């Protein structure tokens, strides 16, 4: 394979992951649940480790199921802390994800002799090794990089999920009470969205790492939100940003010889801060035209 094919594959995979994450992130943003997305991406760690331990492989269905279950568990735990124990939302999120993440690291150390899974790889995987990791059928047919297929499947599922449940998702995001009143199971939709976030986290953690998934979940939608407030343009802009981030991130990382996933996030951050500078209330003298929103209200 020439460098160009590799570059194309890496950019394609990066863009697919960025778009899947971005689409889900738009709905998280509209629900003011960005930090919940962050919490989920940390909290899936024990699920990944247990799935890995049970099946002995990073690529198994057990890993995805384990992570999905942990993702849902963390959503439920945040909800229970908030509603049953009356802990404020930000603290519920903080307590939940740190506890689950700590358990994950402890499990990694516990199974260290059996499991070839180190903490760094879970946290910030490496997309650059993608062209070596090929999916070869038992008959010896080379189908190309495995992770690209995974990212494609994930992209397909996420877009399918949003396409099929578009009305329900947007209604529950904008007006939960109205949507419950007309018979949409708001809680069920919410759990479905959280499961998709967990699944996307797992399917991406090998290539971009669990923490950088958060960046792709949050930063492109936030950037797009600075430019538009309508849902469809928001989704389009997020997708466009995802592709741009993948291309620029790859070439910049290649140029300074560093982590591609990290560079994708850095590029996303540059777009974010640039947009904030342009669209923020600028100059400072005009401040006060928009009200600062109260902290984590809901």
């Amino acid at each position, binding site marked *: 394979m020439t460098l160009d094919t590799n570059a194309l594959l890496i950019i394609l995979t990066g863009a697919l992951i960025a778009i899947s994450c971005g689409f889900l992130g738009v709905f998280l*943003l509209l629900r003011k649940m*960005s*930090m919940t997305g*962050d919490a989920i991406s*940390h909290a899936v760690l024990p699920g990944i480790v247990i799935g890995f331990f049970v099946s002995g492989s990073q690529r198994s269905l057990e890993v995805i199921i384990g992570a999905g279950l942990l993702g849902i568990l963390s959503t439920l735990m945040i909800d229970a*802390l908030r509603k049953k*124990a009356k*802990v404020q939302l*930000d*603290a519920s*999120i*903080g*307590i939940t*994800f*740190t*506890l689950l*993440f*700590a*358990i994950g690291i*402890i499990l990694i*150390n*516990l199974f*260290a002799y059996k499991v070839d899974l180190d*903490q*760094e790889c879970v*946290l*910030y995987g490496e997309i650059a090794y993608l062209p070596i990791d090929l999916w070869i059928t038992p008959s010896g047919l080379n189908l190309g990089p495995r992770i690209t297929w995974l990212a494609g499947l994930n992209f397909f599922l996420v877009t399918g999920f949003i396409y099929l449940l578009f009305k329900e998702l947007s209604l529950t995001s904008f007006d939960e009470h109205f949507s419950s009143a007309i018979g949409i199971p708001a809680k069920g939709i919410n759990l479905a969205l959280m499961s998709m976030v967990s699944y996307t986290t797992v399917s991406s953690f090998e290539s971009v790492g669990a*923490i*950088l998934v*958060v*960046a792709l979940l*949050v*930063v492109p939608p*936030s950037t797009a*939100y*600075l430019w538009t407030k309508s849902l469809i343009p928001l989704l389009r802009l997020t997708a466009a940003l995802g592709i741009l981030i993948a291309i620029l991130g790859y070439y910049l*990382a290649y140029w*300074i*010889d*560093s*982590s591609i*996933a*990290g*560079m994708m*996030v*850095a590029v*996303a*951050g540059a777009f*974010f*801060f640039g947009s*904030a500078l342009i*669209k*923020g*209330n*600028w100059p*400072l003298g005009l401040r006060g035209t*928009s009200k600062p*929103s109260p*902290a*984590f209200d809901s």
Partner: protein
Amino acid sequence: MEDFLYFFTFQDPSITWVVLGITLLGIGSAYVGTFSFLDKKALLGDAISHAVLPGICLGFVLAGEKDPRYIVTGAFLSGALATFLSSWLKQNTKLSEDSIIASILSVFFGIGIVALTAIQKSGNPEVAGLNSFIFGNAIGIAEADLFLYGGLSLAILLVLSLFLKEFRLMVFDPGFGKAIGFPMKGIRFVFNVLLILAVVIGIQAIGVVLMAALLITPGAAARFWTDRLQPLLLLAAFFSILSGILGTYISFVLPQMPTGPWVVVFLSLIALLSFIFSPKSGVIRRFLARRSYLNKTHRDHLMKALFKAKEANREVLSLEEIHALYPFHKKEIAHSLQVLTKQGLVLQDSQGVRLSPQGTSDAMRIVRLHRLWEVYLNESMNIAPDHVHESAEQMEHLLTPELEALLEQRLNYPTLDPHQETIPRESHDA
């Protein structure tokens, strides 16, 4: 057991150092974290702890080795930049606070990863220690570094204790503080500096990702035991020290175990136990309080029904009639009757249930409160007579004798409620 004794008698000076270090770090971050928890900015600490990574890398590049002074300075500067950016974004864009925090956190962390990878590929042999910032390494803190971190921690404690009043104002009522002439912006600035410092020294022991727990969890757990600020701070510090020592002990006994995650697990355990068992506002306590209130309302309703029957000149209600009044509540009725009989408020015989003299008086009071409240709503609040019943259904269980006397006085001892029913009083009947 031998391990236990060896560890807790502190014979080994290195154990003493580690425990001392983790105690100082724990107190510092528990104090600062409790304030930011009360300020409802708990996750800002999480953002800062991710955001210091680029600064750590920068400090490392500038010093060329793992010099704690450079690293602390670098970490502090990038934490400060992140704090400044988040408050700038909050004031100048329409983004909500949680997306701002999540964006800052992930972007800074991403940049940090880029820098870390670039440094690792540069082949500097000193680089191995840098990873310990991500996951923390309490055991690995050198004694020399401990003086720097311990000193900073003490400084944090000192500033927080000296300016307790100012920080209390910032958390509970910044508007009032501004009105009586305190420089609230300056106070918040100092607090942010302390928060960043606490994070910078805390991640040595516990790592970037889990730092949030050291800040948030002790305060959240302690909040369940007290409402006052000083006991809250002391309790948070105590929880933090306790889990710090337990975590260190685990990684001493099982050397392959990392310290930080165990500290977090113990902290969370304390927090979860507090949430469940706290006698003030724990889950069990609130469940019991709710159940006893529901039982009381049900008993009140039953006595009211008996009293109303009495008003209609029927002394005795049969069990079937009571069941018909409250369908689907067979179990509750049986329970209420049992309790009421035991208290001597109702009498049961073969004909059915009747009120005892004491029960009549108690039931009369409930009906009186109900009707008084209806009169009050109707006359003083101008609410239509057909809208007052629902509210009275709730208030009849809550009004105290003092409020009752006040209502009677205000309404000038009315005789009829808005539905033209008599308001029963002792002198009347007896």
